[in-house]
């Protein structure tokens, strides 16, 4: 094209710019998922809400400390010390994680229910596979596009609480276990992975995000209902009070296993995972005395195995449902 002309040719022209080598396209797809997630206001609202336990806990700690300071004297000091003594730090993360389960579900639905289902409806695969991508790129990208925002959402509040604790309560044993935070991070990674894999798997079965979401929520709540029944059953059998005598069903062969059944739901599994990896059965919330006894932690290896198996199953379902060859019918 001559440079001397004053009138530019604005009709179609080719593209001579750089093209990256045709590998690792999954990251482009994942980045779109992450961007779409971060652009949603609801995502940040849910993230903020999921921090509620940590926030209340911080408020409680703050309140007790102020109370101890405002009425100086050995009694209130001792009271505060006793309060801190009752608190098991790692259990606060367990509760923070456990009490945010519903919000994690909402986030998983928001991020993942439509991830593949809406693509099925709009036949997005036609666009994606006609570019230098394949099925693996697509699935990996979609999975990461749900997993990364979900992990971020789980991580942010606990990170804030961890920093707060590390700065304020070092002297009270907050940092005693150097392996604690990596372990908790593992819990979050597994938790986010379970949610992403399952929701992606369910999403791939539908072509409307709405139906996929309803189905995943259905699975979640039905199993949740089941495990709630089981924990009532367990409490009925073992007695509600910690250390209390057995009320009924003592001779039943089920009594021993019912506490395992409690972990047979999505949220139950994640809480069980958290307990098993952190090595705790749980303790009263907010350091307040509570009569209800916690369900003991499940064994570590089988729990992790179940979680990993669920991830594999979800991804496998999605893999089998995505038909790469249908690009041009």
């Amino acid at each position, binding site marked *: 094209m001559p440079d001397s002309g004053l009138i530019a040719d604005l009709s179609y022209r080719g593209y001579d710019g750089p093209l990256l080598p045709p590998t690792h396209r999954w990251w482009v797809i994942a980045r779109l998922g992450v961007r779409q997630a971060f652009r949603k206001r609801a995502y940040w609202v849910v993230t903020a809400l999921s921090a509620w336990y940590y926030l209340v806990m911080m408020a409680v700690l703050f309140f007790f400390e102020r109370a101890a300071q405002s009425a100086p004297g050995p009694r209130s000091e001792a009271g505060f010390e006793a309060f801190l003594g009752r608190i098991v730090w790692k259990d606060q993360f367990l509760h923070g994680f456990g009490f945010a389960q519903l919000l994690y579900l909402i986030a998983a639905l928001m991020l993942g229910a*439509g991830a593949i289902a*809406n693509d099925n409806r709009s036949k997005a695969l036609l666009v994606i596979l006609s570019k230098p991508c394949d099925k693996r790129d697509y699935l990996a990208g979609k999975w990461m596009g749900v997993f990364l925002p979900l992990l971020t959402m789980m991580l942010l509040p606990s990170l804030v609480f961890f920093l707060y604790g590390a700065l304020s309560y070092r002297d009270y044993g907050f940092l005693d276990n150097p392996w604690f935070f990596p372990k908790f991070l593992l819990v979050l990674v597994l938790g986010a992975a379970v949610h992403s894999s399952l929701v992606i798997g369910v999403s791939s079965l539908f072509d*409307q*995000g*709405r139906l996929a979401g*309803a189905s995943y929520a259905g699975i979640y*709540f*039905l*199993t949740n*209902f*089941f495990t709630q*029944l*089981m924990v*009532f*059953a367990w*409490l*009925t*059998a073992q007695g509600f009070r910690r250390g209390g005598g057995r009320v*009924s*069903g003592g*001779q*039943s*062969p*089920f*009594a021993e296993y*019912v506490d395992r*059944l409690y972990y047979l739901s999505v949220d139950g599994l994640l809480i069980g995972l958290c307990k098993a990896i952190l090595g705790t059965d749980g303790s009263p919330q907010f350091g307040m005395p509570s009569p209800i006894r916690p369900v003991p932690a499940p064994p570590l290896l089988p729990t992790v195995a179940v979680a990993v198996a669920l991830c594999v199953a979800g991804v496998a379902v999605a893999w089998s449902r995505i038909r790469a060859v249908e690009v041009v019918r």
Partner: protein
Amino acid sequence: MIARVLFVHALRDFLRFRRVLAWLLVIAGVAAAGWVWAGLMGQMAPTDVYARLSSILTFRVLPLAAAVFATAVVGQEVEQKTIVYLLTRPVGRPTLLLSRAAAAALVVFAIGAACALAVALAAGLGSGVARSLGQDLVALAVGSLAYVSLFLVVSLLLNRAMVVCLLYAFGWETSVGNMPGDLYHLAVSSYLSAIGSKPAPTSGNPLLDLLSSQLGLNLITPQRAWTVLAVLIVGCVVFGTRWFATHEYVPREDAE
């Protein structure tokens, strides 16, 4: 004859392999939960165990199934755009609606009955339990008609009715039954439990009672329950048929 064709067609659609599998899983879950519970409530009378499980499990699954299948009668046809083939056949719209709704009610009843049977087996199928089971089957039959006709009307009036129906089934039916005062009159389940088997008024365990909707005292007599349910079913069916016969149902673009 066309009614039978429609009925069989709807039934075959409702009993597709994937759907059957999903519901078998639900029923298996109910059976498992019932089994564990029954084992833990060893000292309770089997009929009481049965009644309790029945109201916690069976009568929870019933509205859930009804919500899924009643919205498939018309709503799903509109969404998958196949409604056009049904509406342009020489079949009266009432026949069309009623045959499909009958298929839905039958499937819902079958699911309810399977749950009831699973629960009865878990509680130990003695003569007392068998009698309760018989009573419950009647209640389930009426219940599937009631829920299906109710949700059918909802799905005729609203787009995307399933969410509304599920919310009603889970939220309204479970909470309103437990409300203090006379609010329980507004839940279908209260009338169904008046027809079906009833557990002993209280078990002494408030948590259990809350769970099995036994907190509020249900004073509905079976006669009253029959009348109310009959009016509900007939009313919904008549209204639904009228509405369906006079309103437009065209395939809808379903952009989210």
